[in-house]
């Protein structure tokens, strides 16, 4: 008995020794800057140089005093929902094809194509989309070349442009996480269902979706959270329509130098995203069982 406890203890010690650098790093890299921002969010002025500052809650109350902030937050959440839904609708079938229908080198090649966008700078990707989507741009020329009638395709500076750019940027997350979950499903389960006469939608609904839900949901969360706070894509692709909660926060930091308000708005966003995930988690858990 005592030997077992000793082993457990040395295991714990070893785990602690091995993990502590990682946790120390996380503390330094995530917690410290975040707590600095949390501190700023309660100040009247950023304490740089000889600026006078005091502690206040006005940055948080500002959010509730004007409907502008909440309206933009809702707009950003809706954008997150749309982009996540599209990523799931496109990414899940892609992952299915990759996991179950393609084998060997072809799969490696396809994987490479899925991951390829990750290797380029996101700003470059977004500017490329701007060139493709603008009137008289690549898409416009292409459509006019194959279409007998004269049409004008100018998607740039619209919500569609933002959605296209974001879906392209975040799709790989859904494909990769879904792929891992789908690959773990035993083929014989599907074969058994089929031999018992189940139609494809029954197999999808009763076997594949429940078993791959953890991966699919992980992917969806990975997409939803950054998209709600996105600012670069809406600004470049959205033009006049591109004012979102993320661009509002960006403005506070780079344009009007109101860091405290920017920090407070960021923490409100963090709180809202956490609430959404907390509310969604029981529903998602039920879906898994």
């Amino acid at each position, binding site marked *: 008995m005592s030997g077992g406890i000793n082993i457990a203890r040395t295991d714990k010690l070893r785990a602690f020794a091995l993990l502590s650098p990682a946790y120390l790093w996380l503390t330094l890299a995530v917690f410290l800057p975040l707590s600095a921002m949390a501190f700023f969010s309660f100040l009247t002025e950023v304490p740089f140089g000889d600026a006078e500052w005091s502690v206040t809650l006005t940055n948080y109350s500002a959010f509730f005093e*004007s409907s502008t902030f909440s*309206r933009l937050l809702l707009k950003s959440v809706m954008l997150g929902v749309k982009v996540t839904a599209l990523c799931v609708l496109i990414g899940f079938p892609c992952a299915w094809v990759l996991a179950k229908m393609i084998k060997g080198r072809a799969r490696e090649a396809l994987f490479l194509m899925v991951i390829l966008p990750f290797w380029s700078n996101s700003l470059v990707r977004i500017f490329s989309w701007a060139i493709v989507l603008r009137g008289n741009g690549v898409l416009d020329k292409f459509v006019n070349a194959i279409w007998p009638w004269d049409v004008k395709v100018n998607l740039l500076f619209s919500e569609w442009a933002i959605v296209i750019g974001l879906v392209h940027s975040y799709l790989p997350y859904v494909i990769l996480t879904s792929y891992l979950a789908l690959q773990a499903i035993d083929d014989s389960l599907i074969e058994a269902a089929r031999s018992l006469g189940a139609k494809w939608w029954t197999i999808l609904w009763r076997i594949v979706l429940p078993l791959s839900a953890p991966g699919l949901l992980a992917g969806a969360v990975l997409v939803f959270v950054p998209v709600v706070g996105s600012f670069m894509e809406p600004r470049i692709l959205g*033009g*006049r329509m591109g004012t979102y909660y993320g661009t509002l926060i960006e403005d506070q930091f780079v344009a009007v130098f109101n860091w405290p308000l920017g920090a407070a708005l960021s923490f409100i966003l963090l709180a809202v995203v956490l609430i959404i995930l907390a509310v969604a988690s029981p529903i998602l858990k039920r879906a898994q069982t």
Partner: protein
Amino acid sequence: MTRLLTAIAAVTLTAPALHADEIRVLNWQGYGTDLEWAVEAYEEATGNTVVHEYFNSEQETLTKMRTNIGAYDVVLINSSFTPQVVAEGLLDPIDTSKLKNFSNLDPAFVGNAGLNGEGELYGVPWAWGMTSIAVSNADFDDMPTSLSVLWDPKWEGRVSIRDDAVEAVQIGALATGQNINDVQDLEAVRSKLTDLMPSISTYWGSENDWNQNMASGSFAAATYWSGSAARSIGKGLDITFVVPDEGAIGWLDGLSVPKDSANKDAAYSFIDWMIDPEFYVGWDKEGAPGSANTAATAALPDDSFNKAILKDPTLTTKVQFMQPLADEKREEFLKLWQDLKAAQ
């Protein structure tokens, strides 16, 4: 060059206290006074040496002047900011008799409200520029004469203004016939800008941004800065900078002499050199803002951008020069602009 050398020699002779001094200049980096060829020529002509120190914001200028008393001889100050520096007692009134080129300065600039205080001039008007509109020559056969071109339904979706609250409100003020420095009817500005919003394709942020959108046809007419327009045209962009009948937003930079400067005579000789036509003609080749010296503008080659836009003799009366903006006003404008953007 000989004309310039004789001019400098004249200054040298008429200024008795002038001997080899070190002139310390406080300015933005790369803004005229530190052009290598000009400083070298000046040092050669006068024996004085010129040392530069740079600032990155107007607030920094004030901090530096407050904390380093006597450290500077010539300081560049924007006219909208001069009153604050004067109020702190950091500047000496300009002794115009020490400037040979002073008589050629445009009276409209010399009389600028920001540079003058208590009946004295505190900054020698030096460089200026405008925020107005520029249009694509491919789209316009006849150049627009009114700011209302931005509201013209014909250009819906191909119009832009800069993503800047103060500039947006000032454009709205011009369009509603108001004084940009004293906006009485902010609601009129709000409704005017509300009408403009659906026409806007995207807001522009930087010169580069503007050039790209204009080159790709996303813009037909957009607000723009005069100095940037000169550079864009220089790069081959087919646009025309227009100052509409409603006027334009102007800024004016002056060169001032701090109260505690130890080398005031040398400082005046350097300022005189900076407002000299010969210096400006050289600066214009490298992309200069407008000059406050009418003789300097007249000396430019005819194809120069600055000469072309300054042809209009009524120009300086049409331009409304920016004056200091109170923090409360700035915040009010910011809120108006954010609300407008968020409503899209």
